[in-house]
């Protein structure tokens, strides 16, 4: 369920658009809740990293981007993929490992790809996607295409050398890339303050002369506006941009994580700022959403998730004879 691209000069908040944003966040929330259940039931294997709590970042960002822009995503990317318009069924089927999954069962939860939507993965190596994004932007520059490459990564990535190499290259070559850092405060179990000497991480980008700012990642409209502004700057040729979205994941790092490193109180505090509940409340207070409409959106979101599960269940297994396909391009 892709949301139509809106030019940045348009006012962000009208009823229809607001409902679309809310609907998409609800789909992602319920999709992830269902995924957790299916993982426990043995339908999904491997790692499963849930996006619950962070929905406003992907939904706000994708709403501000154009179809010709490119996305490089992380391994916590179900929400990023769905917000970009990759059908939920295709994402779910991928987690089932089915041939109708968006990577034909080769990638799983961490490696969603979609060429048609310029969605360049689902990258499982922290910070590994940043150089790729730099290169995609370089290709655009060399071919004189005025579009943006948006690279998602977590705050854990800023400790990696590839982050620093990429900042420098992008700034040095003035490339049209938007670095979108989802700062959820924990790199697996390591709190930001336990791993970084400078915890105000958007300042790191400034050191490379990359324009940077932070935005409230729990506020979908703030994210949309910031990404629209940043992407416009990037497309104009003003060089790279760094946006830090301050957010929080409610669930453990992955399904294998017993969460020994943080207290329940912290999670409870962040849930008070839930991106879905707070956005719905705001719309209701502004007269843009009724209780009945909210219920209908929620029901519709569940229907989409149920459809995704049905499609995944219905999907075929890739024949084992195809195992070695697509290692190299077939001659």
């Amino acid at each position: 369920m892709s949301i139509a691209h809106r030019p940045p000069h348009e006012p962000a908040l009208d009823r229809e658009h607001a409902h679309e944003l809310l609907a998409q966040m609800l789909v992602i929330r319920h999709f992830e809740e269902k995924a957790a259940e299916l993982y426990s039931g043995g339908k999904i294997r491997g790692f499963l990293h849930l996006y619950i709590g962070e929905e406003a970042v992907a939904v706000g960002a994708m709403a501000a981007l154009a179809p010709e822009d490119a996305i490089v995503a992380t391994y916590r990317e179900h929400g990023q993929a769905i917000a970009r318009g990759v059908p939920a069924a295709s994402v779910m089927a991928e987690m089932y490992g089915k041939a109708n999954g968006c990577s034909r069962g080769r990638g799983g939860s961490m490696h969603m790809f979609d060429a048609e939507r310029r969605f360049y993965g689902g990258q499982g190596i922290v910070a590994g996607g940043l150089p790729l994004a730099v290169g995609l932007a370089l290709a655009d520059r060399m071919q004189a295409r005025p579009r943006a490459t948006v690279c998602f990564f977590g705050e854990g990535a800023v400790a990696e050398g590839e982050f620093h190499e990429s900042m420098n290259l992008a700034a040095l070559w003035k490339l049209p890339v938007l670095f979108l850092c989802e700062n959820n405060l924990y790199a697996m179990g390591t709190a930001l303050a336990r791993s970084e000497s400078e915890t105000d991480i958007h300042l790191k980008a400034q050191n490379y002369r990359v324009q940077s700012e932070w935005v409230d990642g729990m506020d979908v409209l703030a994210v949309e506006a910031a990404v629209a502004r940043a992407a416009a700057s990037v497309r104009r040729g003003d060089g790279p941009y760094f946006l830090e979205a301050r957010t929080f994941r409610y669930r453990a790092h992955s399904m294998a994580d017993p969460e020994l490193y943080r207290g329940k109180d912290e999670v409870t505090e962040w849930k008070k700022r839930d991106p879905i509940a707070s956005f719905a409340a705001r719309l209701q207070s502004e007269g843009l959403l009724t209780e009945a409409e909210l219920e209908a959106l929620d029901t519709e979101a569940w229907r989409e998730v149920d459809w995704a599960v049905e499609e995944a269940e219905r999907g075929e297994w890739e024949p084992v004879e195809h195992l070695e396909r697509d290692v190299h391009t077939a001659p």
Partner: protein
Amino acid sequence: MSKITYREAIRAAMREAMRADPRVFLMGEDVGRYGGAFAVSLGLLDEFGPERIRDTPLSESGFLGAGIGAALGGMRPIVEIMTVNFSLLALDQLVNHAATLRHMSGGQFSVPMVVRMASGGGRGMAAQHSHSFEGWYAHVPGIKVLTPATVADAKGLLLAALEEPDPVVVLEHATLYPVEGDDTPDAPMEIGLAAVRRPGARVSLVTYGGSLPKTLKAADELAKEGVDAEVVDLRTLRPLDMDTVVGSIAKTHRAVVVDEMWKTGSFAGEVMARIMELAFDELDAPVVRVCSREVPMPYAKHLEEAALPQVGQIVAAAKGLL
């Protein structure tokens, strides 16, 4: 035809490819103004300008990864890593990203990128600038590995690499750069074919890359002693042409495998294992190998020579099989 060197042959391939296809560009450390650490790209900046002969900071992972991204974005990058030793700083991008993207995306994305790097010992560069890791790269499905050993191959295989839809690693043994030859091809060669560089009947000497000149010398020595050795040059390590190797052993029934990797885990070990799988019944003697000694490369000339495969060892190994 006038003679050209191995390094000029590589330069000629890059120049021709860049003239023919605007998507092709070169990037790496000091490839532009400096002309390349091994002078391979000397003069290309004047013809193609700084956008296409792109100097990079010392960020191997960053610019190799940018090569992957540029390839995804429709370009045909040639990434020069100064030496194979520095490629260790870019292993994540090469192994975790370039090699996996096609398969991991269910065939949706290809990475048509060529990564060139100098490799090997023999020049007094000591323990951090003399490695042979081609077997590591050949271990990885998703990348092709070329080890041109002749001037003609330096050009013809690179032209072929630039037509590949997937990542290709080209290892250029640094002792080969000044070698002269006089017949370079105008068209890309086929990837995945070994070549018999010297026909013979009594023993097969199987090698590649920087060890080919030594192995040919060993065959000359053996000939003086009345031993007719056949020399097989693998040319590409992945895909590996075992048909040519097995065809040679079907004639000679004996084989010595020569490479410059450390013996433990050397690519020679892989070739030996395949000979065992495919041609055990042809063998009249155990297959043996001549590899580097198990020591970080020493600086002093006599020590380095003792650490690397030498002509005398190849001759002795071959004679030991007769």
